[in-house]
């Protein structure tokens, strides 16, 4: 398959353009998404010029109406892709997302589907302060009826966004801001690659410890794995969940049965985060079969502060993953693998 290097931003833009080309019922709605601005982070640049201002609508600052109109359009034959500028602003549209989008199919006894995609971006790492840095994927993973996707590479970003748009259910699609400029290979447009939702991707195979993560932390987990290999002779398997809900239990459990040590890592707040859900599930499922060594990496229990040194203290990175992997192996009596091998 011929591939090119694209940034995450370009890859996402291609996904939107291809889906709009393919399906005339796909339209975009969001703040500042039309040209010449092309979105606060330029993901939609060029699309209003190409597809017109009916299919790429600039919305007022009205998040409840942006998501709500997406719901209304989705149940009446459209396939809306709405953009909420920051993860944090989803809070304003909570009812439309949680009590409307997520429940209409169920409440109606299966009469309709809600093929709505809600794109938003955000996350820590830029001193954006407490109201522009949150990672709230666990909130939405808690809601039956919603699907939650977080890509980590341009290729996945494109293939997952295409899948989200084609999916019959409401999907919240979180784009990690720090990845917009990251580059990676992406198949040519003709390939029409669509990644299945709910399927994790093993980004690095390994036999000693499983690191489950997603989004911006995937690159950090890969870096941590390199360090563990170099410094400890430990081979970490890095699993990128890609879809946070429904998450891929099979892939995670299979890896855990092989490595017998698990680290779940995310930059979202540790308390009540996805790590808790994954750790508990693995514990329940694997309790009788193997020794269970599990560690969670997540943000400390505070809002994301502004000053860089405060933000770094609250939000985990490579160091914390390495330390957690070492701790699990130590508890399992497998520390210093290198020395023994």
């Amino acid at each position, binding site marked *: 398959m011929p591939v090119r290097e694209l940034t995450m931003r370009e890859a996402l833009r291609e996904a939107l353009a291809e889906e709009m080309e393919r399906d005339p019922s796909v339209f975009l709605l969001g703040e500042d998404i039309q040209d*010449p601005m092309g979105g606060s982070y330029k993901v939609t640049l060029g699309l209003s010029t190409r597809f017109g201002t009916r299919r790429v609508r600039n919305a007022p*600052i009205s998040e409840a109406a942006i998501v709500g109109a997406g719901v209304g359009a989705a149940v009446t034959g459209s396939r809306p892709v709405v953009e909420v500028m920051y993860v944090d602003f989803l809070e*304003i549209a909570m009812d439309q997302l949680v009590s409307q989008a997520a429940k209409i199919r169920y409440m109606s006894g299966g009469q309709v589907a809600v093929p709505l995609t809600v794109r938003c971006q955000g996350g820590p790492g830029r001193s954006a302060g407490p109201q522009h840095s949150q990672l709230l994927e666990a909130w939405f993973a808690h809601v039956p009826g919603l699907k939650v996707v977080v890509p980590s590479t341009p290729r996945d970003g494109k293939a997952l966004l295409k899948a989200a748009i084609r999916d019959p259910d409401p999907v919240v699609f979180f784009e990690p801001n720090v990845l917009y400029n990251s580059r990676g290979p992406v198949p040519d447009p003709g390939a029409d690659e669509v990644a299945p939702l709910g399927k994790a991707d093993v980004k690095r195979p390994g036999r000693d410890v499983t690191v489950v993560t997603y989004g911006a932390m995937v690159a950090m987990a890969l870096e941590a794995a390199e360090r563990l290999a170099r410094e400890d002779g430990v081979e970490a398997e890095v699993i990128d969940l890609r879809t946070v809900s429904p998450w891929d239990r099979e892939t995670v459990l299979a890896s855990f049965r092989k490595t017998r040590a698990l680290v779940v890592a995310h930059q979202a707040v540790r308390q009540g985060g996805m790590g808790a859900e994954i750790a508990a599930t693995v514990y329940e499922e694997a309790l009788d079969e193997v020794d269970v060594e599990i560690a969670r990496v997540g943000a400390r229990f505070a809002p994301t502060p502004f000053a860089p040194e405060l933000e770094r203290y609250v939000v985990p990175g490579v160091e914390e993953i390495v330390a957690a992997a070492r701790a699990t192996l130590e508890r399992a009596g497998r520390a210093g693998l290198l020395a023994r091998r």
Partner: protein
Amino acid sequence: MSGVAFDPAWIVELYRRMVRIRAFEEKAAELYQKGALPGFLHSSVGQEAVPVGVCAWLERDDLITSTHRGHGHILAKGADPARMFLELYGSEEGYNRGKGGSMHIMDFSIGVLGANGIVGAGIPIAAGAGISLQNRGSDRVVACFFGDGAVTTGAFHEGVNMAAIWELPVVFVCENNQYAESTPHRTVDRAPDLTVRAQGYGIPGELVDGNDLFAVLEAAQRAVERARRGGGPTLLECRTYRWYGHYIGDPAVYRSDEEVASWKARDPLRRVAAWLLEQGALDEEGEARLRAEVEAEIEAAAEAGARGRRPAPESALEDVYAG
């Protein structure tokens, strides 16, 4: 440009406040462009007459709510520029102990209930502050600043309506600088101006030249007095313009150079300076001296900001709860 009714000596003081805001914003932009300040920075250069004209009628224990573009409001309410710079640098000695940054400066000791990163969020908060004052039988008032973009939020509708039905002591001040990020206000609002909406809420509304300090002063005086004597809220729309892009670094491709130039020609500072010269309240030398004094003050504040104590990392976990 009226202004005849005002004491020139007082206008000199208000002019000083406008110059202070301009100097603060220019210094902050310079530091930001050098990479000295983390996070985002939104400049209010060009809009100085609005906060100064409104806060001129407020006392220390009156209250304000502000926005992401809040430096001007906060300075006009009497905040210390040095502690603001300390916060912009993320210092432990900043207003928010380095936890908020430019977009979240708060000083409850002078009634600054907060800049805000969420558009429109300050509007219901202002209504709630109005409830506190009303229940306490206080004659204090709340000035609620927000942009044209906030007018399209649900929070605006809910907050203004609540203040209207209970006649809360709030002055709603829309700084219509024509744009919300790249979006021209006229493309997201069919009402010709906010007085139409004020009518819909059953409260007084005024359309004001926000680049004319005297026009702002006059409208704000009426609104603040009405609120003080229990007459309920007023909705002011002050038409103005931000000279910089949405944030420092925004190339602002969505507007023309001619448009920017036409608004710069209506510089709110120059208009006040011209009036003061005309009145003989300041001569050119005095005006230059005033500017130099303020610039030195801001320079010193910025230097203090750069020298601030860095926060201890563990302090990130403090103040999550009060008890």
